[in-house]
């Protein structure tokens, strides 16, 4: 049974029901110790079932191995097999990223656009970052990203692109905010050195900064804006969906108040020639305030575009609505697919 499957959740609910019945039936005959055990079983089954459902909602632990702390069991570095085309749309494949620079060896998922298999072109690349808690599976399952990409590309509103969905932390309970934590995981190095290197080595992609972009929601929105400003030589544009101006964690070197703080960077450092999309919902006060702050601080040559959803809070529904607009916008800021030189 998979950790995220419906069967396990139903099993959990059955356990909640069974323990309630057991308490009711056995209580009168039970001694003190048995009664305590019955109550404990009730509480445990309820807590476990709630935890299972929360994990389903956030896609934090996507397998039993991940829960057990295994990183990426027995997957050789490099691209996973690409199945034969099953339909007109793009396909999602798995890429094992060797953490040569960061020491983080983690898998990533890669969306290959329609036509990738048959063509010879090199494609622009978008790195898509998830929220916290979360995982690349949040993009793939909860935000249905493949369907949205297929639709935008088929409609000609977006140029075919590779979209890469990396993990941002080796431990689902450690929030890196895509930074190099002092004495901890080096997520920034993983995302800006190891992931691009693995993508370039494994797929036909364009290499210049003009063809590379970032997108992320929630914590991933902070990541996208922060990495754009920190690595303008590598990325031409970034889209932050319900993102923040500061990481909200301690990086360990104080940089959450300075060089890993988008607000601080916009105030104190020269702004790069790049595009920044800020999508947010009007009823999500934190990201609305931070997005307005970033939009207000941005000056040429940094170009800001905003997109506001009226209701939706900090939720999948809002991000699904923002996705097509943000990908279309990103595509207009990135270099086209091109024949290899």
């Amino acid at each position: 049974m998979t950790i995220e499957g419906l069967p396990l959740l139903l099993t959990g609910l059955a356990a909640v029901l069974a323990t309630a019945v057991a308490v009711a039936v056995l209580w009168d005959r039970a001694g003190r110790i048995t009664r305590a055990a019955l109550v404990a079983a009730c509480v445990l089954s309820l807590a476990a079932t709630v935890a299972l459902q929360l994990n389903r909602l956030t896609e934090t632990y996507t397998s039993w191995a991940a829960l057990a702390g295994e990183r990426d069991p027995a997957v050789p570095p490099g691209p996973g097999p690409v199945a034969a085309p099953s339909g007109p749309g793009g396909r999602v494949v798995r890429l094992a990223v060797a953490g040569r620079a960061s020491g983080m060896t983690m898998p990533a998922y890669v969306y290959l656009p329609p036509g990738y298999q048959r063509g010879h072109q090199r494609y622009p690349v978008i790195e898509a970052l998830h929220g916290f808690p979360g995982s690349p599976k949040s993009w793939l399952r909860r935000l249905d990203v493949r369907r949205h990409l297929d639709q935008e590309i088929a409609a000609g509103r977006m140029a075919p692109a590779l979209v890469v969905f990396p993990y941002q932390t080796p431990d689902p309970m450690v929030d890196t905010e895509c930074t190099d934590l002092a004495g901890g995981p080096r997520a920034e190095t993983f995302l800006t050195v190891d992931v691009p290197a693995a993508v370039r080595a494994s797929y036909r992609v364009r290499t210049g900064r003009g063809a590379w972009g970032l997108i992320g929601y929630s914590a991933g929105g902070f990541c996208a804006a922060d990495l754009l400003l920190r690595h303008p030589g590598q990325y031409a544009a970034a889209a932050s969906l319900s993102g923040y101006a500061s990481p909200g964690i301690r990086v360990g070197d104080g940089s959450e108040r300075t060089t890993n703080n988008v607000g601080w960077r916009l105030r104190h450092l020269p702004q790069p020639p790049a595009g920044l999309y800020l999508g947010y919902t009007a009823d999500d006060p934190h990201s609305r305030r931070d997005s307005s702050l970033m939009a207000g601080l941005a000056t040429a040559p940094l170009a800001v575009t905003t997109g506001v959803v009226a209701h939706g809070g900090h939720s999948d529904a809002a991000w699904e609505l923002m996705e097509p607009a943000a990908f279309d916008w990103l595509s207009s800021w990135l270099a086209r697919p091109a024949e290899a030189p």
Partner: protein
Amino acid sequence: MTLIGVPLILVAGAATLTVIGLLGWSWNRGGRRRRLPTRVLGVLLGEALLVLTIGLVANRQELFYPSWQALAGRTSTTAGSVPVAAGRLDASLARHPDQPWQPAGSAAWHLAAPPAVTVPAAYPVRPVAFPVLLALGGRPAPADLVEVRLEPGPRTDALAGLPGLLAGDLRVTSHGWVIVAAAARVPLAGRLVAEFPGRFTALAVTGHAATPPGCPVPVHDFATWAAATRWAVAQSPPALEPARVLPPAEPS
């Protein structure tokens, strides 16, 4: 009652406590036949209300769903698309895809020859905005962009208002433009790029030239106009269908 308000949390909390209290009160009352279903229902209801109350508190704290509407996934917003306004020269360009372009104000540019535009074959049939290739002092290779050719003269030191004038006359994008220039025209190109930040994405040069000071786009050198054009075109986005757009933020 709002989803994130204290009243709802109080009601849920009170209901939880009431059910737990009633469960304790009724635990040993009645015969065994009545006791069992009451106990099972009471335990399950108490558990459900407890989880609900904790969920409401967490949601009030984190504002995942600030309203019943957000909880239901009703965003009250649709991503629309903005149709591209026709250019003043569209009809004429459908007949003559390669023609002189002399907008009012171009006299101030002091060009050595009248400017000219060439539109790609797709221009008359696809009602979308096209990125622009601006050629300064030479003839670029044919490309699928809107091509604008300018021959600067000795007194040409600025191309005031060029992007706006072009956007009125042709269907062109607001960014993703590229420049291909003769080396001698690089200072002029640099001023243009700096004057319109965000509009130009690449600057290709035939011959050798350094990136002018203040120009945010680096210069790339090429031996021929064909090579410079090929590279510059590859740096631009393709002509895309009108993007899905969300309402922009109100200016603060």
